[in-house]
């Protein structure tokens, strides 16, 4: 649960999250919070579990003094175009409330909410998205990483493809934000990935053999048998089943060799 919590908090751009290792040093230590905060160089705001609000950068502080919205709170979001007076709204709750000023306000999406949204989007992305500009469900990604990338892909969704492609093609531009951190973590290069608090993606899946000419039929079965036995040549039962498979295909010489090999393996163990 600690790992999950740390991983979730790390997605929030406005927070700096101390690694689990650092935080757990204080477990049961009985030190007062201000002392812990001093040692960790964070604000002593009563926050625990290694979470501290990130110190605002100089230009954020300057913007704050000017009364502007800091970038982390959505100032960089494009403002909605002005609606002509009297034009009908979209029927949202704000419009229904009859408050045109609020209805036209830029969405004040919080940093945490944006980070969660970005993390959700990242989870749904695949390497295929980087090239095709579309997001593909993760289950499809898993299949594609196993089989040939030349296979036709299942119908992708088209949810904000431009931003997704930009993110995956230019991760450096997003080095400082939650999207970038999530991406690095999933690519195995981030601190979070090393601490194993979230799964590394793409996962190191074994390379499965490509499909045979008859799809998921006998060719596939044979390739899978051979692949399994390459991975574990000492698996007697595998050789036994493979012998039966070969016999069922009328390949008796090969089947006999496999069966004898299986018997030899059993004998060598006993």
């Amino acid at each position, binding site marked *: 649960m600690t790992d999950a919590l740390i991983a979730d908090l790390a997605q929030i751009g406005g927070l700096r999250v101390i690694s689990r290792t650092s935080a757990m040093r204080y477990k049961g230590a009985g030190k007062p919070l201000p002392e812990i905060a001093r040692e960790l160089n964070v604000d002593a705001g009563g926050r625990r579990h290694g979470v501290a609000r990130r110190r605002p950068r100089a230009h954020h502080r300057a913007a704050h003094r000017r009364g502007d919205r800091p970038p982390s709170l959505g100032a960089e979001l494009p403002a909605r175009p002005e609606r002509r007076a009297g034009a009908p709204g979209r029927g949202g709750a704000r419009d229904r409330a009859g408050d045109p000023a609020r209805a036209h306000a830029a969405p004040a999406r919080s940093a945490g909410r944006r980070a969660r949204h970005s993390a959700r989007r990242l989870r749904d992305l695949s390497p295929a998205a980087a090239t095709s500009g579309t997001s593909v469900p993760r289950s499809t990604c898993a299949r594609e990483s196993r089989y040939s990338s030349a296979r036709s892909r299942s119908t992708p969704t088209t949810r904000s493809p431009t931003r997704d492609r930009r993110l995956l093609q230019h991760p450096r531009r997003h080095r400082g934000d939650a999207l970038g951190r999530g991406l690095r973590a999933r690519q195995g290069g981030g601190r979070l990935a090393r601490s194993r608090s979230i799964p590394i993606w793409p996962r190191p899946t074994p390379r499965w053999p490509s499909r045979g000419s008859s799809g998921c039929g006998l060719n596939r079965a044979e390739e899978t048998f051979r692949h399994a036995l390459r991975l574990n040549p000492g698996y007697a039962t595998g050789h036994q089943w493979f012998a039966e498979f070969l*016999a069922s295909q009328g390949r008796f010489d090969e089947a*006999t060799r496999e069966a004898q090999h299986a018997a030899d393996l*059993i004998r060598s163990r006993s």
Partner: protein
Amino acid sequence: MIGTTHADVLYFGRRYEDSIETLHRTLEIGPNFVAAHTDLGRAATQLQRFDEAIAEFRIAADLQGIDPDHAPGLGYAYAAAGRRDDALRVIGELEARRAERPISSHAIAAIHLALGDEATALDTLERAYRERDRALVWLKVHPRLDLLRGHPRFAALVRR
């Protein structure tokens, strides 16, 4: 277990004597291994050593605690030995017991074929296909179905 696999390979490769020899070696290790007895029975049937085959099938049935008439292999041995009534009795028993326990339609088809009833054998094989009888994986090579090879319906079934 490995011994019976090797014996299976030899049996489907029509090397019945070698198969029997392998099975005898297996039975030296485990005299009560049911599969070895049934495999011995079917190899002996192909060599037309029917008494030996029937004896082995009966031993296997005893070890399993079932009526010998419920053993498809025994039915095939009866049919191959020309004991038509016995074979038909076994078929009747097997068909009657199908609701109680899984009985391979493939095995029943082989008995029909040994009795010379090709059409019924093919119908029963079609039923086996519909039931996804796993014994159909041996369709290409099973010695009991050799009489059907070259039949268009059988060829179509193998293609499927």
